[in-house]
């Protein structure tokens, strides 16, 4: 199955929180467009709104203001069920700490993504993806039996196994050393290449950003700069 990547369109999006300390402007009037199949890095200091922006694009939260469209569908106008359906059908998430379900083995964590649809042949497909990522031998291990890098690669496998049109990765290499980090990014880029997915990666690591097409820099919830990088050849 080959699907084109999803175009992302963010228009004047804000996300504000009321806290005891006052109003927090996690994302403050950001506008940007990511073309289908494009790999974009989002950089910036901690607390600048990278994860919030990814969450808004992924429909995990709704913006306080502005409009977000993914693949032509206005996420910010969708209800919870439709946003869930969107995540299920078109999105793949890789979280900061992998967030594998601890009571599932590596292959089961990956198969879970497929089981959200119908689960037919999920196990076999999941195993194939893990094998491709070099984790075939560790497929029956539980999350706490895998190294940090392996866990993130399993998380990548879980995100890409359904060949999503958009992959959102929130600091996928944040807790990894350079080598492991490179392997995880390789996995993401390979998956993107295979599925033609759009890839958005929030990262602190300039080395990771350099391997993507473009780098957006956020500061205090605002877009501070856009930089094209040499990046990987776009499939």
């Amino acid at each position: 199955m080959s699907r084109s990547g999803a175009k992302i369109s963010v228009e004047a999006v804000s996300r504000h929180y009321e806290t005891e300390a006052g109003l927090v402007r996690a994302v403050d009037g950001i506008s940007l467009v990511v073309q289908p199949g494009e790999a974009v890095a989002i950089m910036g200091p901690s607390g600048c709104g990278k994860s919030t922006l990814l969450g808004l694009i992924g429909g995990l939260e709704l913006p306080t203001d502005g409009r977000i469209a993914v693949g032509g569908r206005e996420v910010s106008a969708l209800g919870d069920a439709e946003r869930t359906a969107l995540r299920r059908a078109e999105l793949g998430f890789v979280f900061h700490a992998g967030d594998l379900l601890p009571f599932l083995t590596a292959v089961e964590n990956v198969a879970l993504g497929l089981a959200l649809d119908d689960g037919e042949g999920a196990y076999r497909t999941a195993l194939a993806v893990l094998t491709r990522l070099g984790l075939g031998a560790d497929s029956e291990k539980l999350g706490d039996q895998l190294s940090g890098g392996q866990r993130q690669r399993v998380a990548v496998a879980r995100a890409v196994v359904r060949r999503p049109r958009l992959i959102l990765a929130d600091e996928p290499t944040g807790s990894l050393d350079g080598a492991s980090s490179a392997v995880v990014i390789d996995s993401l880029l390979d998956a993107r290449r295979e599925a033609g997915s759009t890839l958005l990666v929030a990262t602190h690591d300039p080395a990771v950003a350099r391997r993507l097409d473009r780098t957006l820099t956020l500061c205090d919830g605002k877009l501070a700069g856009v930089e094209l990088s040499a990046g990987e050849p776009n499939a």
Partner: protein
Amino acid sequence: MLRYAWRELVRNPRRTLSSMIGVALGVGLFSGVLFFIDGSSATMTDRALAPLALDMQRVLTSSLGGGLRLTERIAGAGSPHAGDTATVRLTVTNGSVQPAHDVVVNDEPPLPLSYIPGTTAVGGHAIPDRGGQSPLAQGLARAGLNVGTVAPGASVRLAYRARTSRPVKSISALRPRATVSSREDVVPLAANAPAPLTQAQLAARIARIPGVGGANGLSFVDLPPGSLRVGGSRVQGPVRVFGFDRSYQQRYPSIQLSAGGFARRGALLSAEPAQAAGAGRGTTAHIRLPGARLSLPVSGIADLSLAKPLFYSRNSTKLEAFLYVPDSLVVSPRIFARDVIPAFQAAHAAQGTLLKSPPVSEVDIRVDRSILSADPAAALAQTKAIAHRVNRIAPGQDYLIDNISNALAVAAKDASVGRRMFLFLGLPGILLAAFLAAYAGSILAGAQRREHALLRVRGADRKRLRRLLLYRVIAFAGAGSFAGTGLGFLGVAMILGSGDLLSATTNDLVTSGLLGLGGGMLVTGVALYVPARLSLAREVGGERAELRPNRYPAWRRFGLDFVLLALAGVAEVVAFRSGAFDATQGSVYAGQSVSLPSHLLLAPLVAWVGGTLLAVRVCEALAARSPGGGGSQFGSVVFGTLGRGLRRRSRPFAAGVMGVAVVTAFGMGLASFAATYDHAKAADSRFTVGSDLRLTPSPLAAHPASPRLAPKLDVPGVAAVTPVVAQPENAVLIGPHNQDLKELAAIDPRGFQNVAPLSDSFFTAATASQAMSKLLSDPRALLVDSQTAGDLGVGKGEKVSVLLARGTKQQALAKFRVVGLFNRFPGFPEGVNLVANAAYYNASTATRRVDFFLARATDGSPAGIAHATASLEAGPEKSGALAVDSTQTTLNKDQSSLTALNVHGLVDLDSAFTFAMALAAIAIFVAGLILQRRREYVTLRALGMRAAELRRLVLGEVALVAGAGLAAGVAVGTVMAFLMVHVLRGLFILDPSLAFPAGPIALLSGLVAVATLTAALAASAVLERLRTVELLREQ
């Protein structure tokens, strides 16, 4: 630190509530039980005294004498020195109108005086010493001197000399020691005693004692059959003549006047002879007294058939027996004293005449019950004080039977047994509080690991963290215990009513409150502190520990579940073998309380803990083998996730199961206990009544009841009626070797089987049906109770003779064949020895008289019985010809105050807390799920799991925990109830059998189901509100 701890409590209301709710409910249950014990004492006192016919009886010991007096004077120097002598003079005077026979004077000089040998004289004539001792105190028994008969108005003078061994300050201060007795006054009377009081004087002085509600004289005497003639017809049976006045009748309303009333020169006639002779007011009653005759006009007719004060046995071996004498006459105390007593005195005075039944004269005392304390022990102290004051009036002239103190002594002991039983039933409350606190604590400890790590990063050392933990534990345990004690008080006030609760002494209530608060704080504090303290010390990631616990908990490593169950089993077997459950029935009159082996309630508690742990072991093992956790198919997202979670996280699942099971088992055990108690009580009352209703023809009825009345009693609400013939001591069983007076019941076997609660266990070597068939097929068949058969040496198949209708005109000797033996027979509270076919009985005695009817209600429920009673009262009973007793009225006549324990109230209290705790256990489990798994849940949502799927996942896990907990709880609770019910054996006539309370179990299951659903939905709603992005970013 204190401020941080406070903020932590306030800012995490869910967490705070989860920790406190278990503590509050558990302590609430425990303290509630303590308050309940205080409050229910009042009920026990009331119920203990309710069936008491007479509070106190001051019985005159010399109803035929009373005229004998003895004076003692010591003459000599006013202050004699050692070696001085004195003369002791004794004078016996007979002030009675009858001679005193065999008058015995006993005396020894008061110390330091000693008898001077050979100085005794009677009437001025010297009397020789006996064996070197004074004739007034001779032999080992120091027996006195028989001075023979003292004529009415005559005196006998005795004197002797005595010497003092040391100086005496005042000779007049020496206390005389002489006594006098006679054949008429067998109780020795002290010298210089005040003049004996008459019955009326005694009653008047007793009535003035504070706390005495009334004191009335009662005299009676039994006369042989044929002693009464009414009009022209002679009454065949034995006769009892009473002497009391209107005030006595008004004091004891069970003495009912149906016509006429008291008259100075007249007599009340009991209904039976009046009915038989067709006598009414104005008819003359002729009484044959020993050596005299008394004729009195009948001034009224009295129904004495329910008059307990008149007919309760005065025989110490049969105090609880109601020995009714149908042919009775009541005369005024004046006539009794003027005509009846002298006749007996004369008869008694005649040498060689032996009186079988001398007159009895007593003052019946009614204690003012409104002043008695609610606590039986305190009330006992009050009645004993009253008894002491009663005894101080004219001491030595009579004796006191203190029924009320006996009853209260029993009630006090029963209350003590009840307290112990209640305590055992309440003890689990504090254990549950500890468990729920520990359970909540362990869940929170896991969730707090991260916070502790952050605090450490910010510089908090272990010591500070421990102090923080201590503050938190004190706050949770203190506030929870305080709230729990309040809950317990309110719960009891609602169940018992604030009046009953506040009738307990302030001291008791405060003690209970402090015990609840202190015990609760201590136990729950430890339960909260320990898991949290261990968690502080643990560095292993919670997730790893949860998934692959490398060490089982201590109870499991040591097989504590098996050990506890084995202990409970062994304790039960030992108790059975040693007869610990065969508790004796109590007797209020004998001051003997019911003995309940309440310490054996420990066995069910041990089984409760052991059974729950075993159930948890089993659940964990089953969960670890749950489907959906293996193979190459993931399955549906919910089922696949749930199954795998269950399999790989079986221990948290088992902990959740334990939470629900331990509470449910306790609730189930108590509900079964209460249901069994109810069934046993109902079965006992059916056994006592003989069916749902007992219809006793009134002695005032125009005609004696016959079986022909039975169809008329078949009114709406009544399913079947059967007649029964039974009277106390109405038969003589003549066996091959011996004979004895017995109670015989004549029944219609088919009808009796249809209405009476016959059980196979009542008969030996035959079923109930077989026994009734034999009685039906062979008219001469006779069923004999096992003890009678043993005593008289008669066996099955033996031919015997029975004197039927003993002491009546219809008395007849009939042949029978023993066809079976029985241990118990329903319908005869006083017991029955022989059961015969009514048709044969009627043919043999040529009578069709029925003593009572037994009726089975169409609907045996209280409402059905009430309906049948109402129908009877509106129909056949309208004229007052029938007295209707039912199982419901019998329930209210239980003598043991222990059976009056408000077990239902206690179970209601326990059930309310149990339900709340079961729900709390589920809530804590769900709160734990949210705290520990929220990251997993938001991950699943981020991956695309629908809200409905997540709800199903949460609901599935909670439902599995609740369902497994409920199933395990019901199983363990049943075992617990089975063991608890054994303890009740001593309370009931019939062995209680375990009842399964479908209603409460359905209610509990329904509530748990609703709680599960509600908790799962609430959890889903909470999860929906979580900040997904923020949570996913947490390390």
